[in-house]
């Protein structure tokens, strides 16, 4: 593989292990580890996004698809869509950090970002991973260049989250040359401008399969554009399949194996959504600061007021944490993939399997990043005051565009259930030593107060919080399991609360590791890490209390609350002061930078 890049590889870790193990700062990949080439690629993407995508925002938002397609073609010319394509088909076959960087930098316009990632991710990956040589020869180069646009059609009007329940049918024609598809699809991104659709249907009502269908195929109708709250420039239409004849050569992968395609694609889409959320939040942040600096109220810049600085500080800390989280997770995936032999015949299967190992981390990224983006765009709109509510300023567009992120790529509810559920499932399968870890913590806390661990360094207190968070997570998981056993999966609220703790453990740890790893003067990074840690631990405490109150009562609850209070005890940081310092620095920079 001629590609480049991560000269700094992260340590190979097991998916989900973050909850039960500690690793060193040197073991994770951070933004500060980007290679020269990665930085240049990020720059090219940012320049393209700022100069060409942003310049065309109005046309994109008005659904002028020729403009959007033109921009996709330009992105193709620059090579931005070849990153996951094998060299054999003219691709660059690069690492996942690079493709996350591109998703990050390109996200100045939500509509375009979705069109781009729907094309490059769910649009192209099924073909790359499951396509036959003939299928790839026929379609892949055209997609990578942007000449053709791809679309992925899984959801239907009555099956979104329960994807396996789709009703679109496929039957083999009597002459065995075609599959005849009947059914409908809903919420299909890029449908209004796509040339190639990956459509999921059940052969003979049971074999869940995927088909490559070219636009214009008789029997395939693209319905009207949805009038959406946000990402209005992204094409979203229903599809109708009425006796749509698809040549058998266009069956993608094996009949009955389509669910593999569907699930494996999701993991990649989830971490890319995270990267796009970071990009979108940085764009919103910049606009908010610019407005706030120039806007005068009571004789001062609006950015000098405490309640505004609070929003700026929280937003900056969230962006910092998001970068730490996403590049750690994607870097870990790259470390795992780097071990593979690229020439192996089943390489795409192996790649998917390895990515799947980080399914929990990918779900965490999706949930956390979508909710982080929501906070940031809300804060930034608020800073604009009345001007945040009108179309003259980009704040309202960022706000509207953000909302979809909690819904698609698996709702945040589903992803929280996956976070907790798959941790437990892996424990049961023996893939993750969760049960012994829980047992250790239970034993430790039940034995009574123990001396606090000693932590050192600038973030000693925060390391203490992290250690407590991990123990609380394991403790609450243990308590919940004790109460509900195999029935825990049905207690969604408890699963969700446990997920909140698990999520914060991963994010907080990533923040601490990134900050400690950073070379050179980094006082602002330390402040943001402390700010984030305070916020993070509050979430952990709230979730833990909720779980314990739901799984115990009476004396048992009192005992557990004693343990909880012991584990949660800490001296709080002065986040008011930290917030002011962070906000002042960011305001001076005019954008997120440190």
């Amino acid at each position, binding site marked *: 593989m001629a*590609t480049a890049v991560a000269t700094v590889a992260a340590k190979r870790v097991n998916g989900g292990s973050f909850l039960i193990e500690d690793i060193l700062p040197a073991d994770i990949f951070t933004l500060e580890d980007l290679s020269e080439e990665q930085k*240049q690629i990020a720059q*090219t993407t940012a320049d*393209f996004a700022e100069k060409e995508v942003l310049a065309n925002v109005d046309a994109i938002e008005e659904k002028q698809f020729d403009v959007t397609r033109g921009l996709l073609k330009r992105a193709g010319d620059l090579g*931005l869509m070849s990153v996951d394509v094998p060299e054999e088909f003219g691709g660059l076959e690069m690492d996942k950090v690079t493709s996350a960087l591109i998703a990050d930098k390109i996200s100045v316009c939500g509509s375009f970002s979705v069109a781009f990632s729907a094309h490059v991710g769910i649009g192209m990956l099924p073909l790359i991973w499951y396509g036959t040589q003939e299928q790839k020869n026929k379609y892949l180069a055209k997609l990578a260049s942007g000449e053709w646009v791809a679309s992925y059609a899984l959801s239907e009007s009555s099956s979104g989250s329960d994807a396996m329940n789709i009703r679109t049918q496929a039957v083999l024609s009597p002459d065995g040359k075609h599959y005849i598809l009947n059914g409908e699809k809903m919420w299909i991104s890029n449908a209004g401008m796509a040339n190639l659709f990956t459509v999921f249907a059940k052969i003979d009502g049971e074999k869940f399969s995927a088909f490559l269908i070219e636009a214009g195929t008789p029997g395939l109708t693209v319905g009207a554009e949805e009038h959406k709250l946000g990402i209005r420039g992204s094409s979203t239409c229903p599809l109708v399949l009425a006796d749509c004849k698809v040549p058998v050569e266009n069956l993608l992968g094996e009949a009955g194996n389509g669910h593999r395609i569907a699930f494996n694609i999701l993991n990649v889409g989830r971490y890319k959504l995270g990267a796009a959320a970071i990009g979108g939040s940085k764009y919103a942040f910049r606009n908010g600061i610019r407005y706030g600096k120039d806007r005068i109220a009571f004789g001062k810049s609006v950015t000098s007021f405490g309640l505004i600085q609070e929003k700026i500080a929280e937003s900056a800390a969230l962006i910092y944490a998001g970068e730490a989280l996403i590049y750690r997770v994607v870097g870990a995936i790259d470390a795992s993939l780097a071990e593979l032999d690229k020439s192996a015949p089943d390489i795409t299967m192996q790649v998917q399997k390895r990515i799947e190992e980080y399914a929990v981390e990918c779900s965490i990224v999706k949930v956390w990043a979508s909710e982080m983006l929501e906070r940031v765009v809300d804060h930034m709109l608020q800073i604009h005051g009345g001007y945040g509510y009108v179309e003259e300023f980009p704040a309202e567009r960022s706000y509207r565009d953000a909302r979809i992120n909690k819904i698609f790529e698996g709702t945040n509810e589903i992803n929280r259930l996956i976070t907790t559920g798959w941790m437990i499932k892996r424990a049961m399968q023996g893939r993750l030593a969760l049960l012994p870890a829980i047992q250790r913590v239970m034993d430790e806390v039940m034995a009574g107060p123990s001396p606090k661990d000693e932590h050192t360094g600038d973030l000693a207190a925060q390391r203490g919080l992290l250690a407590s968070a991990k123990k609380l997570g394991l403790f609450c998981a243990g308590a919940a399991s004790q109460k509900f056993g195999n029935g825990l999966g049905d207690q969604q609220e408890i699963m969700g609360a446990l997920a909140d703790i698990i999520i914060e453990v991963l994010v907080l740890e990533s923040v601490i590791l990134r900050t400690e790893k950073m070379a050179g003067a980094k006082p602002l990074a330390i402040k943001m890490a402390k700010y984030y840690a305070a916020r993070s631990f509050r979430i952990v405490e709230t979730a833990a209390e909720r779980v314990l109150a739901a799984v115990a009562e009476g004396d048992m609850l009192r005992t557990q609350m004693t343990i909880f209070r012991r584990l949660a005890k800490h001296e709080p940081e002065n986040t008011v002061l930290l917030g002011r310092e962070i906000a002042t620095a960011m305001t001076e920079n005019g954008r997120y930078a440190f």
Partner: protein
Amino acid sequence: MRVLTLVRQVLDAEESVRIKDGAVDLDGRKLVLDTMDEYGLEQALRIRESGAEVEVVAAAIGPARCQDVLRTALAMGADRAIHVETDTKLDVIAVSKVMAGIAAREAVDLVLCGGQQADWDSQALGAAIAERMQWPQVTWTNALQLNGNELVGKHDVDEGSASFSLPLPAVITTQQGLNEPRYPTLPNIMKAKKKELRKDALEQYGATPLVKVIAESVQVKERLNKRLDTKDVHAAAAELVNLLRNEARVIA
């Protein structure tokens, strides 16, 4: 044929200027390849793409971080790069000695460099190099073509524009409108890794600074910032005319 394009690393135009201890502080600021130099590099690449057998060499002089703009130049398509690494602050006449030295050493036929650049606001580099090489020059060039051994094009002059032709070898400085520089594409970014980036020492070129910079300061002119109420445009117009007449005294 060999073309030398000079690239300078400057503060991004969108960044604000910070002064520390009486000098401009570039630490941690966004630094980019000067746009004026980009036009030169892009033109060199277009000359090569028009079919001529051309080697494009990019050169820069400055501290270690200048390497970044040379890498960008390589990623845009330059064939190789030369970095004269030095922390010494050199004035433009001194820099021209180094660049002329490189041009002579590399036996180039054409030197392209930026016109008005974004940090030292100087116009002099191209002309000074041309004098050292004893070559003709054309500055503020906004159209350029190579026909065999002759350069033809258009450039800005004191009152308007002129079309010109001159024989190689020559020095050309760029003006906005010359071309639209390309972004480094991803394949080219990857190819650039294998291209040569040679480090030369300043001593090889014997240039000493002739001008000393004593201090740098930002002087923001105090502005009145008077916002006139424009709800009634006629009243606002009357107020403005009154101010221009009686306060600013710029009209009768």
